């Protein structure tokens, strides 16, 4: 339909300086202190997600060190039982809700538009709103700590323990509302990424040319759409049970505490894959680049990621084997838990085949990938073990489980993430990191990790339960606990070195140039750091690794997009053929004020549910400000029917 509106031009002369000047002007950052709250650029917002998530990682790490110090020797009286409960609850909640998910979202928000060849995400203002919700949720939980209202019922807050009867006070309300904040943010990002990937890909980037990391973010986003509502329902019902006297989880009035476990784990298990799938996407990118060949089995990998997304929803009950389920249910969820190893296995073999067929270059990011292989396979194997009901019941609530999920989450997500940040750091800052320090850091982290968590398998098999604040000297657990605590210190040293490398390199690392790794995907075509408009001209994509097919200055380009306003090219969903031009909104403070209104509503409703209604009214004014058109147009084009 639009073919007659397009024309192909050979040998086109571009006034680069003029285009640059116009784009700099129309995409410029809002200035000053107020400008910080008006920012809508995906790179700025993405970076905020990543930095904020790392601050929470440090907080969660400090909590972990406190626990390891407490458990380092038997009968230690460093933390009292209540404080220990609070610390492990906040540690888990921080790592899951304030670090792992947001940091992956931040990477997606930052990288997806660059990797698919567009200038910003589809809804820049909504994107800013999502960040503020995440930030407020985190501040809210930590404010609770200082108000002596820290939650203490574990990161999954099982009812009836977390209900009004056994957890009076406001501790659990702070936890439940933190969930509402952060999940709202996750849902916002999911919509951002889905629509950006569906509609804003560079022309020619058909479905089979989308980089695997972008595929991973797309599948992850769909999982968020189907999983996060469950936990929002759950936390909302818990809040109502606690504040206005509903009975969802109260068996005395017909409710069922197990309903909490079902709704929570219906989110909680997909959550694992929500964290892990972006990790596999990162691994796929790193393996491709450093094996110096296109990935082996692209289609198989993409289909594996998609099927992981589906099967991930059929596993939640394996967290509940100890609750006394019907035999058939147990068998079904055991089978599903074993089934999910197949798509993961397919991906592993594709990565191995890529390395086998390429010339692997042992760079620092690649060492992180190797660490991922070692750790994640070990975590996957213990996962297969606990998929079996008799074994699971034996080790349920012991340190074996703690070991298992740290192997899969840190191995499956954090190591790829650290490698990915090292890899994309030049694109974010224009600087290279110190390779020697990077390599040492990776080894310290790998050794420290195994030192900390491998002994926990042994502890679990020897009966040490999780969530106990102390153990006696004659239990025989002292030496392994001491080892784990030493390992925790080693991890902390590795973490500090990682940050030192980042801060040092950001200041005086060598300049990287546009493409320091000779990678093939689009983000390496533009300058480092990427300009605010990402690409001077939107590239036309002719393959999976466009920069490996021809030098970046010979890539065909899109011309005719207006540079005097924030215009992007919308393409068709499947084949990414150009469809229409689209103006993205510019900086505005309204999303911040809507977030403040939402925040007042959520925060107030911890104390009185009417605040929730009040928050809705407060949001109304900034919402209208957000959407009210500023120009007096009063003209709408006659729309043709979509064909």
């Amino acid at each position, binding site marked *: 339909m639009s073919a007659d509106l397009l024309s*192909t031009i*050979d040998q086109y002369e571009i006034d680069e300086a003029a285009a640059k000047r116009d784009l700099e002007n129309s995409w410029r950052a809002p200035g000053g202190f107020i400008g910080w709250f008006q920012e809508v650029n995906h790179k700025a917002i993405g970076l905020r997600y990543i930095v904020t998530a790392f601050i929470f990682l440090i907080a969660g790490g400090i909590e972990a060190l406190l626990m390891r110090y407490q458990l380092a020797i038997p009968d230690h009286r460093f933390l009292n039982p209540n404080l220990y409960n609070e610390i492990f609850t906040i540690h888990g909640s921080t790592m899951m809700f304030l670090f792992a998910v947001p940091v992956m979202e931040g990477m997606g928000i930052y990288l997806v538009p660059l990797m698919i060849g567009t200038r910003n995400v589809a809804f820049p203002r909504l994107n800013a709103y999502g960040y503020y919700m995440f930030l407020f949720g985190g501040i809210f939980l930590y404010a609770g700590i200082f108000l002596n209202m820290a939650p203490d019922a574990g990161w999954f807050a099982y009812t009836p323990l977390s209900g009004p009867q056994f957890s009076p006070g406001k501790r659990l309300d702070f936890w439940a509302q933190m969930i509402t904040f952060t999940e709202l943010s996750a849902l916002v990002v999911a919509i951002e990424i889905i629509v950006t990937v569906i*509609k804003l890909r560079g022309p020619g980037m058909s479905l089979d040319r989308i980089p695997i990391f972008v595929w991973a973010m797309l599948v992850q986003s769909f999982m968020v759409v189907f999983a996060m509502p469950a936990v929002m329902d759950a936390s909302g019902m818990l809040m109502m049970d606690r504040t206005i006297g*509903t009975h969802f989880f109260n068996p005395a009035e017909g409710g*069922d505490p197990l309903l909490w476990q079902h709704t929570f784990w*219906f989110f909680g298990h997909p959550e694992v894959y929500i964290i892990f799938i972006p990790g596999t996407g990162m691994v796929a990118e790193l393996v491709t680049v450093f094996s110096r060949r296109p990935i082996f089995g692209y289609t198989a990998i993409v289909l594996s990621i998609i099927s992981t997304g589906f099967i991930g929803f059929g596993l939640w009950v394996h967290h509940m084997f100890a609750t006394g389920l019907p035999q058939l249910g147990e068998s079904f969820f055991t089978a599903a838990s074993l089934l999910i190893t197949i798509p993961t296995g397919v991906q592993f073999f594709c990565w191995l085949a890529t390395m086998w067929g390429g010339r692997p270059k042992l760079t620092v990011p690649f060492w992180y990938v190797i660490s991922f292989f070692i750790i994640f396979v070990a975590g996957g194997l213990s996962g297969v073990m606990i998929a079996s009901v008799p074994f699971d019941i034996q080790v349920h609530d012991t340190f074996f489980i703690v070991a298992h999920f740290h192997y899969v989450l840190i191995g499956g997500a954090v190591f790829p993430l650290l490698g990915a940040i090292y890899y994309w750091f030049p694109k974010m800052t224009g600087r290279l990191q110190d390779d020697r320090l990077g390599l040492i850091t990776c080894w310290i982290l790998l050794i420290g990790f195994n030192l900390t968590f491998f002994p926990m398998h042994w502890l679990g098999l020897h009966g040490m339960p999780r969530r106990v604040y102390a153990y006696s000297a004659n239990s025989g657990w002292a030496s392994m606990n001491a080892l784990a605590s030493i390992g925790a210190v080693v991890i902390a040293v590795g973490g500090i070195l990682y940050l030192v490398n980042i801060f040092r390199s950001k200041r005086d690392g060598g300049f990287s140039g546009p493409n320091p790794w000779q990678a093939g995907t689009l983000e390496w075509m533009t300058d480092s750091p990427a300009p605010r408009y990402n690409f001077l001209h939107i590239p036309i994509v002719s393959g999976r690794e466009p920069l490996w097919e021809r030098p970046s200055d010979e890539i065909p380009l899109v011309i005719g997009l207006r540079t005097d306003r924030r215009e992007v090219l919308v393409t068709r969903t499947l084949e990414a053929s150009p469809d*229409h031009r689209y103006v993205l909104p510019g900086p505005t403070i309204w999303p911040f004020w809507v977030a403040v209104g939402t925040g007042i509503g959520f925060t107030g409703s911890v104390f009185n549910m009417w605040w929730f209604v009040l928050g809705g009214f407060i949001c109304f004014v900034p919402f209208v400000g957000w959407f009210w058109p500023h120009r007096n147009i009063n003209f709408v084009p006659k729309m043709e029917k979509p064909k």
Partner: protein
Amino acid sequence: MTVERALDVSNLPDAAPGTRAPVWWGQIGMMLIETVVFAIIIASYFYIRLGFSVWPPPDIAPPELWWPTANLILILLSCIPMFIGGKAIDEGRIGTAAFWLGLNIIMALGFLAIRIIEFNLFNFKWSTDVYGSLIWILVGLHTMHAIADTTESIVLFGIMVSGRMGAKQQIAAKLDGIYWYWVAAMWVVLYILIYIYPSIRLGML
């Protein structure tokens, strides 16, 4: 700089309706999320129901059907002006669209007024027992959505009569309509669950 090959897109339109517009997909995504929110609560309803031999629990009075049924018909009818208004907006007739949107708003406000009567017809509170909790959360959540979309319609009406309609607001007006159809369709499901299902169990229908 010389480019070997370039694609000139300057003649492409700078807005497009329906599935071609990014915001259409955004709206569908948000509606998908809301649908999952309801689906999880409906699943919880049936999960809780498994633990009961008598459903609804004995102390719950049989549902009143007259007002709720009238209200269901009202919200379904209110989709008609929304649809006609959507047609008008496609054809660029803003005045006509504003008229039909206004009619929809009046009907939506009527729906919300009768909703208050519906709440009053329940002989139980959310705190009576788990059945009360489930019904109140379902109806309450649906009411929140109906209020939200009515508010959106009012703002759009304001934009129309103040003469600020542009291509983006045109798409927004269509999406407001799609959202209202969703609110109505969701109420059909909830109406069956809240009024018809217990009536059948109690032998009233």
